[in-house]
C-alpha cells in the first residue's frame, strides 16, 4: 500500500532516479579468461598479419584492387594496340617455324 498522501506529486527527478536504478540492473559479465587468451593469441605476428600490414601500408584493397584490375586490362589491351611487339605474333611465328621443321624431317629421306 502506498504511504504517499493524496496530494502527493512526484518530483520530476524521481523518474530520472528510478530510470537510473532500472538501467543499473543491466550488468555485463567481465571478459572471460578464454576471450582474453584469444585476443592475446591474435597479437602474435604471423605471416597473415604481416601480409595484412603490408596491404594496409600499400593503401589497402580499395587501392590495390583497382590497380590490379587496371594492370590486367593494360596487359590485355597493349598487345592489340601494338601488334608488332605482341607476344602472340612471336609465338605464332615460332610455331610455324617449328612446324616447317617437323615437315622437313618427315619428308626427308635418310640414306645411310
Amino acid at each position, binding site marked *: *500500500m*502506498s504511504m504517499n498522501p493524496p496530494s502527493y506529486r512526484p518530483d520530476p527527478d524521481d*523518474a*530520472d532516479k*528510478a*530510470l*537510473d536504478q*532500472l*538501467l543499473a*540492473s*543491466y*550488468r*555485463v*559479465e*567481465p*571478459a572471460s579468461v578464454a*576471450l*582474453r587468451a*584469444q*585476443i*592475446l593469441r*591474435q*597479437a*602474435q*605476428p604471423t605471416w597473415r*598479419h604481416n601480409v*595484412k*600490414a603490408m596491404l*594496409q601500408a600499400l593503401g589497402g584493397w580499395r587501392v590495390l584492387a583497382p590497380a590490379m584490375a587496371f594492370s590486367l586490362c593494360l596487359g590485355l589491351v597493349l598487345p592489340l594496340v601494338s601488334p608488332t611487339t605482341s607476344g602472340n605474333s612471336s609465338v605464332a611465328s615460332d610455331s610455324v617455324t617449328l612446324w616447317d621443321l617437323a615437315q622437313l624431317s618427315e619428308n626427308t629421306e635418310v640414306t645411310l
Partner: protein
Amino acid sequence: MFNRRPNHSAAPSTPVSDPDAELLERIADGDAQAFEVLVSRHVDRILAFVQRMLGSREDAEDVTQDVFLKAWQWAARWRSGEARFSTWLHTVALNACRQRWRRASPETSELSEELISPLPQPDDLLDADLQAQRVRLALSELPERQRAAMVLSHYQGMSNIESADILGVSVEAVESLLGRARRSLRKRLLAEYETLSNSVR
C-alpha cells in the same frame, strides 16, 4: 591519434594526456606484454559497451576481438596527444557494431517472446535478470545513435565531449540524443514499472 574523420566537436588545442601512450609505443615495437596490459585495462569496458550495443554476448566477444586486433595492428600509426586511446577504441567498437548491423537482420528478431510481452507478471518485479532483459530490450529498440549516446554516457561514463567525438556529432547533438533516449526509456520502462507496482499494491 590514427588517421580518422575530422573532429566535429570542440577539438582540444592542448595535447591530451593519455595513460596508454607509453604502452602504445611499446606495442608498436611488437611488445606482447605491453599489449597484454592494454587488453587487461580496456577489455571489460569495450566488451560491456559492445554487448549493450548489440544485445548479444557472442557477437560482442567477436567484435571485441576484432577491436583489439585493430589496436595491435595500428599501434605503430598512433599519434599521441590528439585524443585518448580509449576514445579511439570506442570509436572502432562502434563502427564494428554498425558493420554487424548492416550484415545481420534486426536484432529484435533474436529476442524471445516473453521479453516482448508488454505487461510483465508481478513475480517479475523481483527477478533482477528479467528486469535487466527488459532494459536490454528497451535499449535495443532505441534508434542506433540514441542507444550509442545512452550507453556511452550512462554506462561507459563518457563525457558529452568524448561521446560527441566517438559519434562524430556536436556536443549539442549528443545532449539532444540523450534527452530523447531518456524520454523513450522512461516512457517504456517506467510505465511497466508503475503498472507492476500498482498491481503489487
